[in-house]
């Protein structure tokens, strides 16, 4: 599975980083950086949690 960022929707809350710090982080400018886009079984739960916690649905899993 792949995690996909809809950048215009992102408001930079960073709740996703809190849910999945291994997969993504906000940089110094507050822009979300996906560190790992291809999600393996090991990261699936945290990837799902990061998608779910976003209040503006800027992330999705495909």
């Amino acid at each position: 599975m792949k995690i996909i960022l809809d950048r215009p929707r992102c408001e930079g809350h960073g709740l996703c980083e809190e849910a999945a710090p291994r997969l993504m982080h906000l940089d110094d400018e507050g822009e979300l950086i996906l560190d790992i886009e291809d999600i393996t079984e090991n990261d699936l739960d945290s990837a799902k949690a990061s998608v779910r916690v976003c209040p503006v649905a800027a992330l999705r899993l495909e």
Partner: protein
Amino acid sequence: MTTATPHRIVVVGNGIAGLTASDSLRTAGFDGELTIIGDEYHPPYSRPALSKAALLDDGEMTSHHLPAPTHEASEILGVSASSLDTDNKVVGLADGSEVPYDALVIASGSRARRLGSGDAGEAERELTLRTLDDALVLRQRIATQPSVVVLGGGALGMEIASGCLDAGCAVTLVSSDPPLVRQLGSHLSEYFLAAARRRGLTIATSPAREVHHREAHSRVVLADGSSLEAELVISAVGDLPNTEWLQSSGLLLGAALRVDSRGRVAPDIVAAGDVAAFPTARGIRRVPLWTSAIEQSKVAALTLVRGNDAPELSFQPYFWTEQFGLSLKASGYLPLAGDPEVLEGDLREDKALLRWSHDDGTGTAVAINYRIPIPKLRRLSSALAAAVSPAA
């Protein structure tokens, strides 16, 4: 405590709390039968978005959309739960049917408090903004740029007022307290009020006593005897937990549904989200906010599967609002007394990172028009003042 993993779990509520609880049950390994009961027909959506971006979406409204659920639950939508029998472990629904459970998640949320009687005719004319349907109606009504009176100076009232102004409406906000003072404290209240006035918001400080709905105009009578006329009156005067269906369940303390630090109400019943009053560092209270619902639901779901091996809720308040061209993000308890320490930027330039220290040694970090990852904002709020000063 729970001796075996239940086979059939029923979740009452299809908002973010019910959705997160269902997701979390699956993540925790629950592979039994999962049923979600929701009184709205819509799939789960982002409620915070309704009073922010969604009011202003051009064309089709999409800002509230959430990704499709993956919990593979059976969904019973468009019908509300009307009773709970804990002896026989059955949820009664408004259509007369019954849904049995081994374990239950109560996530029935809250609803908008109304000033009027709530009679069908009156409720139709007293607009609120709580559900997706409310938002669709409001968007349609403000499209013709009517004059608007907003009752209530909390975050929701101010967001609605801001959205209506942006849509081109003349807006008066009625609030007996200075707007946002109870949510944010006087320092930020004054700051937001100044921004709101610059954008054209009119404030009436006398409390509303009566609202008379007429064909084309409504009249709001204020306590000082004056009155306001508007084509649209929108109330944003708080929320009430949906606990009526639990009245004969024996689970309520007055109207309150109290849970322990793991979301438990009874051995096989947990509750989470806007409906639940839970232990916080500032006492047992409901915290009807997005991240609160999510954090509570994760803990509550784990508790059903793992019992006391589930971690206790470690609640860290997170609040955000967008209004009058300002975006605020706050980590830590609110409201805020006194003046802040300025960590970065300057409020006079509408971009700042601020921190208030509390007597108990914790703090609250607030970012205004300042993009900062939540983990960093959380660290600033919890760290000792000395450790974050001067530049973090």
